[in-house]
């Protein structure tokens, strides 16, 4: 029941982010069926594409009454394709490292997607979510996750991962957006939605 509520939250957030992405890319964007799972740290990299998958990660810490992390993960070649669509020129390399302008473009993309996601959550829950400036890394998924998960490690043995995928033109997977609420935030979220815990 509670995980159903969380899946619905992920659906609403990612739906709004997909609309923003569709406008930016002038393409049709669909979202996958959201997942909400509680797992040990060791299982998270596998869930996000494999510990060694070469990816772009754009991370935001979310502050406010319900703290969380938002992470956008894209396979590096998909990020390169997005850059081509956004900037109108081929990126310096299809597998990274990218130029400073390209990094800025990716962080801006992250800003727009995470804000759209959180805005939808705010209107649904009436909680205010404040994202930090973006932080970006291009490397193995596992290595990108280390820093983010270590914050959860201080207080918990498991982490709740809410995931939604974006698909362009029905088939082409662009990337995934992950919301990781901090353990204390769950009650705040459930209370706001009138869910009895």
């Amino acid at each position, binding site marked *: 029941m509670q995980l159903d509520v969380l899946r619905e939250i992920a659906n609403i957030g990612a739906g709004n982010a997909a609309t923003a992405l569709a406008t930016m890319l002038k393409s049709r964007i669909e979202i996958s069926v959201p997942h909400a799972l509680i797992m*040990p*740290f*060791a*299982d*998270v*990299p596998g869930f996000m594409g*494999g*510990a*060694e998958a*070469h990816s772009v*990660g754009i*991370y935001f*810490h979310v502050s406010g009454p319900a703290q969380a992390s938002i992470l956008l993960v894209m396979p590096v070649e998909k990020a390169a394709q997005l850059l081509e669509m956004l900037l109108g020129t081929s990126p310096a390399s299809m597998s*990274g*490292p990218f130029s400073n302008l390209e*990094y800025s473009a990716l*962080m801006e993309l992250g800003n727009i997607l995470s804000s759209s996601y959180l805005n939808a959550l705010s209107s649904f829950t009436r909680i205010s979510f404040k994202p*930090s*400036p*973006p*932080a*970006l*890394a291009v*490397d*193995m*998924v*596992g*290595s*990108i*996750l*280390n*820093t983010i*998960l*270590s*914050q959860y*490690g*201080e207080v918990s*043995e498991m982490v709740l991962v809410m995931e939604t995928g974006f698909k362009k033109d029905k088939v082409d997977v662009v990337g995934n957006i992950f919301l990781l609420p901090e353990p204390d935030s769950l009650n705040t979220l459930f209370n706001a939605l009138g869910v009895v815990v």
Partner: protein
Amino acid sequence: MGELIQVGMAECKLARPPDKLMTAGLGSCVGICLLDPITKIASMCHIMLPYCHHDKPAVNPGKYADTAILAAVGAMHRSGADTDHLIAKIAGGAQMFRFSGNSDIFKIGQRNVLSVEENLEKNKIQLLGKDIGGNVGRTIVFDPATGNLAIRTIHEGDKII
């Protein structure tokens, strides 16, 4: 042919030849490899945080540098290793996010390495090799037969220490 034993985030595992120990995608975490050169009993831990601050025993000692080293030494001892003459090799402790605001969470890699080195010394374990810091993700494979630690990266090539 030995087995390649996978060590996940916050886990600690033991191996002896011909098996090898591997952890994939180390970022700010540190991979700690310990070996008894005589019995060839080895361990690998993938620690996330520098210290266990709880006064009660950690639920999962593998999460913290200080408790992971103690737990690994204890498990190696119970398996018959001579834990008075262990050697260590470590890798990881990077700062993955280059374009970050000034937040302390991004310095976790450095703090992890400091704690690992301090706790190895405290337990009188000789540190024979390290590949730490930078902005790079690492996958490592430790071979108890030779004591070699192979390090694989996407951006900076491969090496053995």
